[in-house]
């Protein structure tokens, strides 16, 4: 019963955002929403590898950049957007599979620093090979509409969340979490740790490329090297841990806090915006080690303990945890 209810809830949210897209055409709100969707998709994609399978990758932006690069080049070359995205995902999947094998031989901090080195190497190469700015053609700029990118970004985040939810509930997801909890024990019970890590690595890369495609379709002009930058990986990780690692909702809540919070800060105190964001961010990390979701659960547990009689009415067991807090 609870899976059907939660699916209905997710559909309700999707329809609400879809309607929101057409009601308003306040450009700043649309931009914020699109940025939130892209960050939510990117953070959720990182969460698949980092949250479910417990492999902390610091080179995730390479796949975000790859997805953006291929989609943009093909789409500006007069190719239909959906086809360009499919090709981008296919190429990213191949690259991820090729890179994943050697990378996943490393464990723990060595995997993190190894993927960081790879990410920086790809970032420098992208900068050297594609030095020129990538802007939309002049006439397309003058008729630029936010509704298109809005729905693409919404579609992308919906797909990423759907895949995450399917994965988390599937046998595949279970295998990944076993690897996360204790890799030796998992491989001892016949779970091929490398296989699950590879699958998580490729799925995470493809979803990141999808987020990159949404970025490429939405952005007016940027340097192709930009989506490869390590800053995207750091921000994605920040969002996941502030929201709640290993959960479905965590990255979503985290991206709202990140995008909306940063925007409000930059308009209220522009000069010291970077300073205040740094301080605010540290306070959140220190006070909520488990992220918003765990804080929500703890708060919820307090409330539900108070409203014990609630249980009869709603028939939903209060205080059930959404999966333990992980590394």
């Amino acid at each position, binding site marked *: 019963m609870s899976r059907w209810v939660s699916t209905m809830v997710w559909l309700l949210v999707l329809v609400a955002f879809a309607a929101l897209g057409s009601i308003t055409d306040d450009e700043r709100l649309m931009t914020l929403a699109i940025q939130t969707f892209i960050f939510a998709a990117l953070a959720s994609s990182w969460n698949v590898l980092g949250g479910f399978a417990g492999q902390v990758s610091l080179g995730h932006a390479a796949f975000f950049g790859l997805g953006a690069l291929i989609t943009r080049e093909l789409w500006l070359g007069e190719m239909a957007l959906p086809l360009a995205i499919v090709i981008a995902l296919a190429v990213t999947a191949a690259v991820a599979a090729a890179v994943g094998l050697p990378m996943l031989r490393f*464990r*723990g901090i*060595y995997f993190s620093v190894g993927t960081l080195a790879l990410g920086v190497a790809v970032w420098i190469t992208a900068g050297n090979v594609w030095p020129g700015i990538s802007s939309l053609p002049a006439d397309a700029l003058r008729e630029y509409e936010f509704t298109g990118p809005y729905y693409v970004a919404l579609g992308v985040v919906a797909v990423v969340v759907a895949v995450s939810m399917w994965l988390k509930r599937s046998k595949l997801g279970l295998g990944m979490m076993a690897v996360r909890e204790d890799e030796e024990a998992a491989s001892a019970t016949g779970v091929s740790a490398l296989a699950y890590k590879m699958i998580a690595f490729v799925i995470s890369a493809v979803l990141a490329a999808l987020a990159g495609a949404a970025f490429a379709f939405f952005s007016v002009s940027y340097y192709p090297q930009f989506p490869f930058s*390590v800053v995207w990986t750091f921000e994605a990780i920040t969002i996941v841990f502030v929201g709640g690692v290993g959960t479905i909702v965590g990255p979503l809540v985290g991206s709202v806090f990140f995008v909306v919070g940063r925007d409000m800060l930059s308009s209220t105190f522009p000069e010291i915006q970077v*300073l205040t964001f*740094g301080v605010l*961010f*540290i306070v959140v*990390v220190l006070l909520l080690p488990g992220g918003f979701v765990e804080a929500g659960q703890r708060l919820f547990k307090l409330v539900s303990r108070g409203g014990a009689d609630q249980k009869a009415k709603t028939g939903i067991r209060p205080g059930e945890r959404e999966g333990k807090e992980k590394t």
Partner: protein
Amino acid sequence: MTQLVLQSAVSGLLVGGMYGLVALGLALAFGVLKVLNVAHGELVMLGGYAAFLIFTERGIDPLLSMPLVFVVLAFIGVVLYQLLFRFVVRFDIEKRIKNSLLISFGLVLILQAIAVLLFTGDDRSIVTGYSSAAWVVGMVRIPWVRLSGLVVAVIAAVALEWLLTRTTFGHAVRGTAEDWSLASLAGVDVRRVYMIAFAISAGLAGLAGSMVSLGYSVNPTIGLGWTLKALVVIVLAGLGSMRGIVLAGMLLGLIEGLASVWVGGPYRGVVALVVFLVVLSFRPQGLFGRGGAYV
């Protein structure tokens, strides 16, 4: 051609010494506190500005002002420890790495913003009488300013090694690094060891900063570049080990120097990273480390 190769190799070793000096502080903080301080590069930046100010205001040469810069940065290290990292060390090892990564990422933003407010965004560098002086050995010129970076790195490494192996405090530090609860059972005040180790780590960053502002240039955004190099060096040397850091740094510098000759400038960074990955895949515990691949 051979002159180019030799000079590039030597220049690579010199800049590698700098990578080692920056990595020394990071290795100490990670080795002892198991804290990954991504803002270590920002401490180097602040050290660079400190040396620059002492030079421009008081006219003291950075090589002479290094002890003062060390103390100033060590003090900043104590403040940062008390404000932030004191809470991180309460977690168990795995959570410490995750939380210290997040907190130091926030610290990067704060320190950069403060640097901009205090020093503006311009590039600053210390130019002394001997700035263009160099030793000529055969076809190769060894600039004094860059050589001093390497010399300071070696001296710092030796001093750290002496501290860790010859003094009782050093035993306490190494004991804490291996097992903090056992160390406290031996009567070691682990909190104090953490604070002092972090202060020394910041002080070493200050020394590196002085050398960066002497040999290169300082602006608020140089931090992350140096942190990335230091991170590669400490993993290359073997995580957790505080030996062989400067050697690993020089190796990385050498690889980059030679890479620039054959592969060409734009890809010198890429080649060094690829070589690092190859080395890592054959010796997961690093060149000098003993620990298992998984920390």
